[in-house]
């Protein structure tokens, strides 16, 4: 096996979490790569839904935006956006929501809104998009984020999407219908909530990564689960499939477009 990059590692580890025939609400970027890799490997029956309204889509290349034409052309159906959020997400018809974020805290709450105070931010981020309601309603949520002390923080600057709130069952008591973040896939492996405290703890490491490396990248004192798994390295098939997908995508996005004159 060729040495793989951290992004490839993360994408493959995340793809493995997705069940065949699951119904998955897909965010753009790394989650989109992971969901399509799962579809092209072990989960051909997975139903991918993009917030633009494309349901059951099977793109040959990864979309740059959430609404590329490729998504509509390869979809089972295309529905209006209010329908996706009302009749599918809010109605409880999504198994898995896949989110990224600029900041995540120890209870899996996410910030994609601002760094600094809301009224005078040092960095204005894109904002909520579909995330708050995906986090609220999906039966389970997976989060993908590159680890650093700036992103895995003790205290969020802004809570855009709810994870386990303050932990210890506060989310369930608030009446949130969905199950919250079940896994956070990051550069060195995976975090998951402790069954009682709901604090994210280290549950699995990529082969070759260490607990020290994980602790150095996390902004709170990271606990380690009683049983620490090792995530098997990418297989040749997984890596080849992902690289072919990424190569097709790069080629498609670089292709000059005819200006419609």
């Amino acid at each position, binding site marked *: 096996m060729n040495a793989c990059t951290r992004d490839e590692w993360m994408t493959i580890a995340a793809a493995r979490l997705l069940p065949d025939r699951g119904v998955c609400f897909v965010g753009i970027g790394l989650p989109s790569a992971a969901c399509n890799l799962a579809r092209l490997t072990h989960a051909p029956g997975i139903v991918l839904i993009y917030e633009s309204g494309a349901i059951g889509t099977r793109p040959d290349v990864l979309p740059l935006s959430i609404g590329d034409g490729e998504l509509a052309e390869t979809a089972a159906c295309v529905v*209006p956006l209010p329908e996706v959020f009302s009749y599918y997400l809010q109605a409880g018809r999504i198994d898995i929501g896949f989110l990224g974020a600029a900041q995540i805290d120890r209870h899996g709450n996410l910030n994609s809104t601002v760094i600094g105070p809301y009224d005078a931010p040092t960095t204005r981020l894109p904002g909520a998009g579909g995330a708050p309601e995906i986090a609220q309603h999906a039966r389970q949520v997976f989060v993908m984020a590159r680890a650093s002390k700036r992103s895995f923080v003790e205290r969020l600057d802004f809570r855009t999407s709810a994870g386990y709130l303050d932990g210890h069952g506060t989310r369930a008591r608030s009446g949130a219908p969905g199950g919250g973040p079940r896994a956070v896939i990051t550069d060195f492996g995976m975090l998951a909530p402790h069954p009682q405290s709901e604090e994210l703890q280290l549950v699995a490491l990529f082969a070759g990564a260490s607990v020290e490396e994980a602790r150095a990248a996390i902004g709170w004192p990271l606990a380690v689960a009683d049983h620490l798994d090792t995530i098997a390295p990418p297989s040749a098939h997984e890596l080849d499939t992902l690289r072919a997908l990424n190569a097709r995508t790069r080629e498609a996005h670089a292709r000059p477009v005819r200006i419609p004159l």
Partner: protein
Amino acid sequence: MLLPLAEAIERHVADGASVALEGFTHLIPFAAGHEIIRQRRRDLHLIRMTPDIIYDQLIGMGCARKLTFSWGGNPGVGSLHRLRDAVEHQWPQPLELDEHSHAGMAAAFCAGAARLPFGMLRGYAGTDLPAHNPNIRRVQCPFTGEMLAAVPALNPDVTILHAQRADRAGNVAIDGIVGAAREAALAAKTLIVTVEEIVDALPPAMNAIVLPHWVVSAVAACPGGAYPSYAHGHYVRDNAFYRQWDAIARERSSFLAWMEQHVLGTRDHRAFLAGLQQEAA
């Protein structure tokens, strides 16, 4: 009904108006946005789920006082630098934000289309958005007692869409990804639609979205009017341009030079496209 685009903007978009240019990634009405910039409209309340490059341009050119939105990035690329500059440094002027989630804004458009006073949803739970936006409140269900999120209806003074085609009576047909286009259209007091082509008869399409002529105020033929966004069946999204925009818009000077040359310096959308084609050759 059938008007040149410049006349439609002149007649229907006033300084200070609330204006929604909708189309979710697909069918974004760039030509209409550029015409608003050419006519130097001011103090607009811009409404759009995903501001995209077209609102980055309107904000950077000083057309907007307020923005209602739910996700303000360059999809798959990164920041909208002009939106950020307005929020972080009040350049070229302060921008008031009315910030929502997609689900919240969709509910607000649906309520607007139905002429109800507010939209409701199971949403915003456990988020900080309601603490910063008085337009996100709670309402109790009179039947079950459940507490739900409520947002005021959105009823833009003007909604502008781009569509594939309209007939001569002004019926408008859209296919492909539609986002909240239909809801934004029916929520508006005035609806302007630019189209790729005007046809004698719309193709039979039982379930494609048709906006009937009596809800449409003006139709303007504008081939290529969604570029660099796209019109399904006509041309694809110029993803390379969306990447290039990151560098163009990063600095005020390069942004202003680009807008001066390509938008203010061109008479209409056809000249805008011709300029880009010449530059690419």
